[in-house]
């Protein structure tokens, strides 16, 4: 590997890291502003223009605060848990292509952290890892509310991961019919969504896989522990849930992980169903620089559209109860996902190979 190639790999990782941090700062601010608007409040408006630096200020404050360690914690696990939350959150986004590849000095730079051929599997694995952080944090805190939060997290994650995985499989199967053989690479999946049907309908997986999209959306909201599925940290019931005993920077890491996960999961939803960065680039009519940057803009727009759904639901819906969440997961989403997978596979089989009797 030449130095230039190494530099490009390094640059790609750095871009992912930077994009996520900036996106998180914007996300937290946007959530507070949007919620405030929906609730007839003002929201943060002190730090910087429109209060956009509020997140930075909060982060700095948390950074300088004392991290209190309660006496009864299991120290090793207690210290490990925040890192276990943040690292998978960053790694998930490594798989997501966030723009069209471009060329600098003869070297092609792909706008993706890493193009693994098992990208989707990696995403599933990492999102399961994040659950460990919550469970460990809850258990190692040596306190009752975090323990309840941790137990809830385990059950919730297991239930909804199944639905999420099944919805992904439907997309993978569909995607395999659109190109040359099956693929788990997110880069490949995006490229197969390029172009249009009948000249104006984009070839997004959303249209043929609309049920899978709805299931996936519900599952990622539950997976990231957001309202109305935020039982894990339901502050009205469990005070702070799994992070009750965390303070200072350790708490900030959980907080960061939550918002990175929202962004990453929305990005994956956009990639799988909304065509990722694909979109019109107007190469003939605008300067090359703009047409190079447009795919990234499309990607961010699609991602934020899904992030907005997260905020919207939080402002509108009351929280589900634990047993209702389980019922929805096991009796609602998972059977629906299985049925959809079977139906869409059979219909694709008909289209690909014709009717078995004909």
């Amino acid at each position, binding site marked *: 590997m030449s130095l230039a190639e190494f530099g490009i790999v390094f640059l790609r990782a750095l871009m992912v890291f930077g994009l996520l941090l900036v996106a998180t700062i914007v996300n937290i601010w946007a959530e507070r502003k949007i919620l405030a608007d929906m609730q*007839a409040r003002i929201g943060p408006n002190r730090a910087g223009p429109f209060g956009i630096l509020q997140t930075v200020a909060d982060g700095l404050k948390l950074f300088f605060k004392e991290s209190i360690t309660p006496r009864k914690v299991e120290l090793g696990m207690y210290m490990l848990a925040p890192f276990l939350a943040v690292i998978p959150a960053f790694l998930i986004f490594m798989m997501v292509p966030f723009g069209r590849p471009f060329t600098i000095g003869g070297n092609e730079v792909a706008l993706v952290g890493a193009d693994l051929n098992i990208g989707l599997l990696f995403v599933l694995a990492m999102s399961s890892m994040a659950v460990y952080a919550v469970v460990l944090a809850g258990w190692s805190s040596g306190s009752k509310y975090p323990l*309840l939060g941790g137990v809830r997290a385990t059950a919730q994650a297991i239930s909804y991961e199944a639905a999420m995985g099944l919805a992904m499989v439907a997309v993978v199967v569909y995607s395999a019919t659109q190109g040359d053989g099956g693929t788990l690479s997110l880069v490949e999946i995006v490229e197969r969504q390029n172009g249009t049907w009948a000249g104006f309908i984009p070839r997004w997986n959303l249209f043929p896989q609309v049920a899978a999209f709805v299931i996936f959306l519900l599952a990622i909201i539950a997976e990231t522990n957001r*309202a109305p599925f935020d039982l894990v940290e339901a502050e009205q*019931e469990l005070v702070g849930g799994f992070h009750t005993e965390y303070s200072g920077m350790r708490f900030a890491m959980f907080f960061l992980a939550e918002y990175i996960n929202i962004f990453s999961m929305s990005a994956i939803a956009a990639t799988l169903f909304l065509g990722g960065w694909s979109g019109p680039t107007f190469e003939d009519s605008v300067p090359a620089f703009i047409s190079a940057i447009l795919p990234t803009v499309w990607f961010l727009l699609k991602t934020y559209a899904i992030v907005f759904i997260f905020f919207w639901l939080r402002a509108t819906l*009351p929280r589900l109860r634990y047993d209702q969440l389980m019922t929805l997961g096991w009796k609602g989403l998972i059977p629906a996902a299985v049925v959809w997978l079977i139906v869409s596979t059979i219909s694709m089989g008909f289209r690909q190979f014709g009717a078995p009797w004909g």
Partner: protein
Amino acid sequence: MSDENTQDQAGGETDTFDLWVAGTEEPQFQPTDEGRQEISEHESEDRLAAQFGRVVEDDYVFDEDADDDERMIVNMGPQHPSTHGVLRLQIELEGEIIRRTRPIIGYLHTGMEKTAEQLNYAQGPTNVTRMDYLSPLHEELAYSLAVERLLGVEVPPRAAAIRILMTELNRISSHLVALATNGLDIGALSMMIYGFREREAILAFFEKATGLRMNHNYIRPGGVAADLPPGWKDDVAAILKEMPVRLQEYDDLLKENPVWLSRTRDVGIIQAEEAIAYSITGPPLRASGVDWDIRKVFPYSGIDQYEFDVPLGERGDVYDRYRVKVEEIEESLKIVEQVMDSMPKGNYRIDDRKITPPPRARIDESMEALIHHFKLFTEGFKVPAGETYVAVESPRGELGCYLVADGGPMPWRMHTRAPSFYNLQGLPIAMADSLVADTVATIASMDPVMGDVDR
């Protein structure tokens, strides 16, 4: 467990029930022991464990088969986001299911009833108004009505009408807080903000009329502190115009919301018999289908001249309590509208200088007025010896004031029948065998105000 007293309380007699669930055998009630809430020195290990919250200590046994290892005791409160102040609940959990609950109170005890014995009758309302801080005007009204009954005086019609106007507005503002916190506790964050936003309009009117947003000391023995401010009709009309729109908004948000329904329907049920047995009053009682409203049964301050209905629930669950509150807001709006249209002219307080102070201008020109003023604000007025009990319908239920006068300027004893205190008794039966998440929904729907409970 050497102490004989301890033996009885810590489960020596397992067949005695502290609680009675409708449909079961009639229990043998034991006298309550208020000392159970304190941590004293010479106690056995078991007792101390109970008092520090390591075990739930109760006389009743729900399920004798359960293994102790499977159960966990959680102290919810007194510092907890959803216990509405400083209510402490000892709950025994089996997984996520609540097996036993004990509400523990007393963390906000300020001795207001005792303080009342050191304040003269004119100062009394400043004290009682701080008990139930969400419905201060009802507290003042109950106290003033009790004093007036002992004095044997009747306030002028305008004073009575102002009292009804203000207390019914207060009912709306209190119910708005109840709806807001109920929404918040179930996770409907927006409802929280909406409820407080609408309450703000009413509090602004209160500030205009009484000078303060809370703790008004506006309703006093002999009438009210001041006449309504000029332009009050416009303010009240604005509230009357705004509220139905906002109520419609709440209905859009919650009434048929499936998540809200699933969280509140058939949760925290209190049956009518249980509610009556536990002296539960107010919206929780009416949600159980019992038609009992002090405004209808023992009308006060001329409220019987106004037309209004008493909304009733059917099942006695959290949803019914929520609906009853919303509908009571609508009924209160009706009353306010009628009061506004029929506000009588006249004096806003009794023209008896032995009870109410003379106008400021009279003090400069009349010796007699000066003496009255001086006497009223130093010694206060004397009330003939006797005792009385007057109840009003506060947003939380029957709010009673029991006064014993010994002929002096201060009450010999003042006791408040605080609706929150009695309503809290229903929590253990409402919460038995429910889930942790239902706890907060149930507490919020009972709408306790800890200042009212502990006094």
